[in-house]
């Protein structure tokens, strides 16, 4: 039978951005259905967002409230510029862009690209961060109103609305472009690691930046602010201020700059959207590598774990050690720990403000700023940071953990093996940190205290995180998009991490107290006591948490298996 396909009876109705927004709200609503904790997390997210919005509002409104016209354009240009940069970079750094509406799902629908882009943009603007930012930016409107009356305020409203669209478009365009660039798994893994390095460096750079700012003459920055105000980073935010300061001609020009940037971003986004829509499914197979060397068992054990016995414990150590390197997510964590663990204590101990100057004259020992107590504290921080990486160690494995359940792996052995494998990387790293800190401070005699606090905290942290990882595991998304994050997982993750860090910090208190009370004799006692404390705590943690794990294996598997 010949099937004659006719045109649809009724002409297709136009699809507008409104449909996308409604779809997004519906998807969000359905996500909450019957998931009390998700609603709770969302509410927490909203509260945090509102709090940040209020803070931002008062920062932006400050020049207006204080009637300090001088600082208005500076606040607008720098604050707004940072906002754009944040929208640009944060999704990349934290691998989180809200994929509630995944473009790939629209691939089969007959939608013009323009409709799709505007629709997705509108849907993206309906989110907690976007609303929070909008509220914060209202501070600028207030400033403009106080300084220049209602005309300036109206112009500023137009400015911040355009600016917000710019922010959202920038975030989408960049992540979309990256996602399609990162089609192959290898490139993706590499990129995740590079981003982790960048993210890890953000903190130290910020500290350096702040210390540099403290010594800078603020009035000199007005010129810089003026220049920034003419770039897309600052243009949308400064229009109202310009009107208020009598430069009304600047407003249309700056709005034009914003609009042009927005158009460029949207065109870029729609280009990469196309390839993301059609190619997202393919993963690209890596070519087969050279043939195997040696037997299967010999292949499993990396050189770093070569000492391990060829039994169950050894196999788990070997596998975990391989995973810390081969799994991009884990490697990214490892690198973050290494970079932050090295930079933060150096900065803290040298004193934030003095750092910039000291850097020019070589690392002069800033003896007055640091003490064994301060050093111990900063080492506790590093130990906490290193150990907290394991807070969701089972989540890294995801449903692959089923292999352990099926083989009835004893929990205590499992936890000990995981600790050992992680320590293969972390203990040498901690040793480097200890030596570097001692050298940078010019206090070789403190090496014992430094290493002792580090090992003690790290060991206690392993114990605490064993419990957290067994009791509070959550699933990480199994997706080809490295930027995807399960809705709500971000908040849950921060809670757990915070909990684990607090617990570890509490467990490390004895070492800090000893450093404060015992004086010079502690310099000699710290290392042996710290090592004993750390190893003992870790073993005890594995013993106790292993028992819990034995009883909870299937529940843990269910917790780390992503919902499909």
């Amino acid at each position, binding site marked *: 039978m010949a099937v004659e396909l006719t045109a649809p009876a009724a002409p297709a109705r136009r699809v507008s951005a409104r449909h996308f927004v409604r779809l997004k709200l519906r998807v969000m609503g359905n996500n909450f259905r019957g998931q009390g904790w998700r609603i709770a997390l969302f509410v927490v997210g909203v509260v945090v967002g509102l709090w940040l919005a209020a803070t931002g509002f008062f920062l932006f409104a400050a020049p207006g409230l204080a009637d300090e016209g001088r600082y208005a354009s500076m606040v607008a240009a720098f604050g707004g510029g940072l906002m754009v940069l944040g929208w640009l970079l944060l999704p990349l750094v934290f691998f989180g862009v809200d994929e509630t509406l995944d473009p790939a799902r629209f691939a089969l629908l007959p939608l013009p690209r323009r409709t799709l882009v505007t629709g997705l943009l509108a849907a993206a603007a309906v989110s907690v961060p976007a609303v929070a930012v909008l509220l914060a930016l209202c501070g600028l409107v207030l400033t403009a109103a106080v300084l220049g009356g209602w005309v300036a305020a109206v112009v500023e409203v137009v400015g911040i609305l355009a600016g917000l669209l710019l922010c959202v478009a920038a975030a989408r365009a960049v992540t979309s472009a990256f996602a399609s660039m990162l089609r192959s798994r290898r490139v993706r893994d590499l990129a995740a690691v590079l981003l982790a390095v960048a993210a890890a460096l953000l903190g130290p750079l910020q500290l350096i930046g702040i210390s540099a700012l403290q010594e800078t003459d603020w009035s000199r920055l007005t010129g810089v602010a003026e220049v920034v105000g003419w770039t897309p980073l600052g243009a949308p935010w400064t229009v109202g201020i310009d009107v208020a300061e009598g430069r009304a001609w600047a407003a249309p020009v700056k709005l034009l700059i914003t609009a042009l940037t927005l158009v460029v971003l949207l065109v870029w986004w729609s280009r990469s959207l196309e390839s993301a829509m059609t190619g997202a499914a393919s993963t690209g197979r890596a070519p087969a590598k050279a043939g195997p060397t040696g037997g299967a*068992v010999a292949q499993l054990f990396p050189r770093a774990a070569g000492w391990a016995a060829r039994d169950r414990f050894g196999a788990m150590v070997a596998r975990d050690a391989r995973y810390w390197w081969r799994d991009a997510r884990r490697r990214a964590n490892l690198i973050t720990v290494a970079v932050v663990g090295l930079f933060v204590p150096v900065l803290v101990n040298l004193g934030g403000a003095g750092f910039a100057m000291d850097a020019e004259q070589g690392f002069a020992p800033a003896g007055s700023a640091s003490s064994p107590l301060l050093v111990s504290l900063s080492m506790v921080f590093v130990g906490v940071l290193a150990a907290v990486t394991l807070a969701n160690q089972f989540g890294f494995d995801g449903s692959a953990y089923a292999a352990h359940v099926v083989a009835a792996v004893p929990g205590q052995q499992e936890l000990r093996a995981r600790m050992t494998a992680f320590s293969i990387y972390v203990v040498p790293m901690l040793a480097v940190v200890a030596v570097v800190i001692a050298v940078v401070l010019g206090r070789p005699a403190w090496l014992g205290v430094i290493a002792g606090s580090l090992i003690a905290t790290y060991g206690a942290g392993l114990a605490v995180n064993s419990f957290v990882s067994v009791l509070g595991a959550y699933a990480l998304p199994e997706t080809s998009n490295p930027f995807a994050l399960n809705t709500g997982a971000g908040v849950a993750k921060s809670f757990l991490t915070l909990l684990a860090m607090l617990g570890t910090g509490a467990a490390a208190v004895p070492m800090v107290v000893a450093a404060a009370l015992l004086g010079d004799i502690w310099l000699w006692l710290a290392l042996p006591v710290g090592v004993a404390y750390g190893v003992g705590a870790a073993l005890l943690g594995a013993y106790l948490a292993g028992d819990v794990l034995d009883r909870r294996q299937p529940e843990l598997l269910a917790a780390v298996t992503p919902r499909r």
Partner: protein
Amino acid sequence: MSLRGLAKAFDGKVAVAGVDLDVPAGSFYGLLGPNGAGKTTTLSMAVGLLRPDAGVARVLGHDVWRDPVQAKRLLGVMPDGVRLFDRLNGAELLAYNGLLRGMDPAVVDQRAAELLDVLALGDAGRTLVVDYSAGMKKKIGLACALLHGPRLLVLDEPFEAVDPVSAALIRDILQRYVGSGGTVVFSSHVMEVVERLCSHVAILAEGAIKRAGTIEEVRGKRSLEEVFVEVVGGRTATGEELAWLSN
């Protein structure tokens, strides 16, 4: 394997409502059911991956939930929709599973080499399992389940996404395994495969066993597909609706 009253509900929604099933030793048992019937849930509870709300699962006399270590020693499992430790290559994965089961390294080496060879995975060399095709992943999963020489093999959808050549290979391996005294339980919704391979079959629908027995008992004079459709219900032909499809 014997299951008694296995039941599981997710968030108040009943997935499996009391499954009773006896799998005789040495049988080749097919578990049939439409999508969402509870096949995966049942098998997961039977092998210790998912804790049942009620009921008992026994493997060769050992209670899976009371005496898991003994029961799991005798079991080989290939779950569906579960990741392998896929950042290892094929040989590493087999070695890992073998050692995890407490096997002698020399035996692991020898069996892993044979399995990779037979399943034509040797060519993949050091390619990580994550980069394998779907069919290759099924094959390496089967190899992992077979490695320690289990007495009972539980396979969830072993023939899904497998090309005809690999499927024939898997069939041959499973038939040899049953021929030498092993027991196989597998789930599927492909009638042809079940009809061709199985000595016994059970039909699972809406979380309960509707028919079970030897394949002759279940299908009688008719084809398995007819029986299946009758048991499961649901329409298989269109009526007056969808007229616009053919105008």
